[in-house]
């Protein structure tokens, strides 16, 4: 409210423009009913830990569309600001767009105020937005970052609730990951210990949850900078394709070929007044 940081205008209520079209499609035309596509859920394990010098975030890389793996190397650790990263679980589109919007807002804020954004500010913006949409945006997020006030780890739920904790796991694989974290977390760990802990927590999620799998990404954020390790640990079950799926040139026979020469009839040049002309 005080500082202009918002790119989107506050439109009241939901946009129901497509609802009539959707009912027509779902109730059927002469060809038959069309079933609405299911939103791609990430079925995920994400985790975060605060250690001595900063924050370590971790995520698996599997994106599922019901029972098929839609993306084996999906990036779930999203950039928010140079010192803030966000892991997202839930509906893939929602986490992508929400984190994108948050990142844009914080960039505008940085430019307007001349300050680096704080993690608590990212959390407040997310809370406002998710609460306003009353849980319709399926984004379960873990935000971690280091700012002038220290290292912070927050979780924001889809209804707009927030928790600040030293270690955390979210997603469908959170139960096994939380087990590892509860067992081995200590305050003020050093970097290697923290990376091993997060990596093992994600690994537990990958092994015990069907919706999580493939590789593990890690992101280490400190005062000095960010180390985005993608992948940190590769899956043991990487499958090599047995055959090539490329077609040789000439596989498709050409039946006919027509060439139409386009004639240049008329050419106009229009000068435009652009701002800041010298």
């Amino acid at each position, binding site marked *: 409210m005080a500082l202009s940081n918002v790119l989107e205008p506050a439109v009241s209520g939901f946009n129901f423009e497509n609802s009539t079209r959707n009912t027509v499609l779902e109730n059927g035309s002469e060809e038959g009913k069309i079933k609405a596509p299911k939103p791609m859920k990430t079925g995920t394990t994400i985790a975060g830990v605060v250690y001595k010098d900063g924050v370590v975030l971790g995520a698996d890389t599997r994106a599922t569309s019901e029972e098929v793996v839609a993306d084996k190397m999906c990036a779930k650790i999203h950039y928010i600001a140079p010192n803030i990263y966000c892991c997202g679980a839930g509906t893939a589109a929602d986490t992508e767009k929400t984190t994108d919007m948050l990142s844009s807002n914080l960039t505008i804020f940085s430019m307007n105020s001349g300050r680096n954004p704080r993690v608590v500010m990212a959390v407040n913006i997310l*809370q406002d937005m*998710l*609460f306003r949409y*009353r*849980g319709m945006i399926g984004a379960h997020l873990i935000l971690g970052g280091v700012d002038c006030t220290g290292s912070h780890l927050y*979780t924001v*739920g889809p*209804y*707009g*609730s*927030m*928790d600040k*904790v030293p270690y955390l796991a979210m997603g469908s694989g*959170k*139960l096994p990951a939380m087990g590892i974290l509860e067992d081995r977390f200590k305050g003020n760990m050093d970097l290697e210990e923290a990376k091993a802990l997060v990596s093992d927590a994600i690994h537990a999620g990958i092994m015990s949850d069907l919706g999580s799998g493939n590789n593990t990404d890690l992101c280490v954020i400190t005062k000095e900078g960010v180390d985005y390790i993608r992948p940190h640990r590769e899956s043991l079950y990487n499958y090599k394709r047995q055959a090539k799926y490329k077609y040789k040139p000439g596989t498709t026979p050409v039946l006919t070929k027509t060439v139409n020469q386009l004639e240049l009839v008329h050419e106009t040049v229009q000068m435009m007044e652009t701002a800041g002309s010298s």
Partner: protein
Amino acid sequence: NSFTIHSFFTFLDTTIMAVEFEGGVVIGADSRTTTGAYIANRVTDKLTPIHERIFCCRSGSAADTQAIADAVTYQLGFHSIELDEAPLVQTAASLFREMCYRYREELMAGIIVAGWDPRRGGQVYTVPVGGMMTRQPVSVGGSGSSYIYGYVDSNYRAGMSKEECLKFTAEALTLAMERDGSSGGVVRLAVISEQGVERQVILGNQLPKFSTV
């Protein structure tokens, strides 16, 4: 239990309590936040500062109560600056009531507002689900409160000292946490008086012990 319908919401099914004493109030809460059967946060802080000497104890939907508390903190801060004076606890409670009653269909929030102001000393106001507001010398709330009404009614005496109130609150919360599955973790306590706010935490293994039957 009507809360079990909304197992996807993050809930502060809880036990919260506040007691008035001569010179201030003692407030307390457990520390469990649940999403269905999973404990999303086992060290939650449900005692939220609204102003320097006014706190609220939150129960119900985590998202709703956090949003309401943020909105009331802003409104009360603005009011206090305009007035150039410390706000009254009754004002804070009225702001909560306004919001909880106006949006009663959309919200699920049970809040106890407690604090100290120079005009009336320590006060406890309860704003349960639905948006009623009433002042009580002792108030309990949340899903675990059902189990301790008998204990509170039989053990509360007017004119208790600060230490007696702290012991009373800690024991009541412990009893509720023993019996209510949605309450647990640690006991967070705070004393609000003219001198300010003193906070303390009683860890799980330090809680008062009762007979295990």
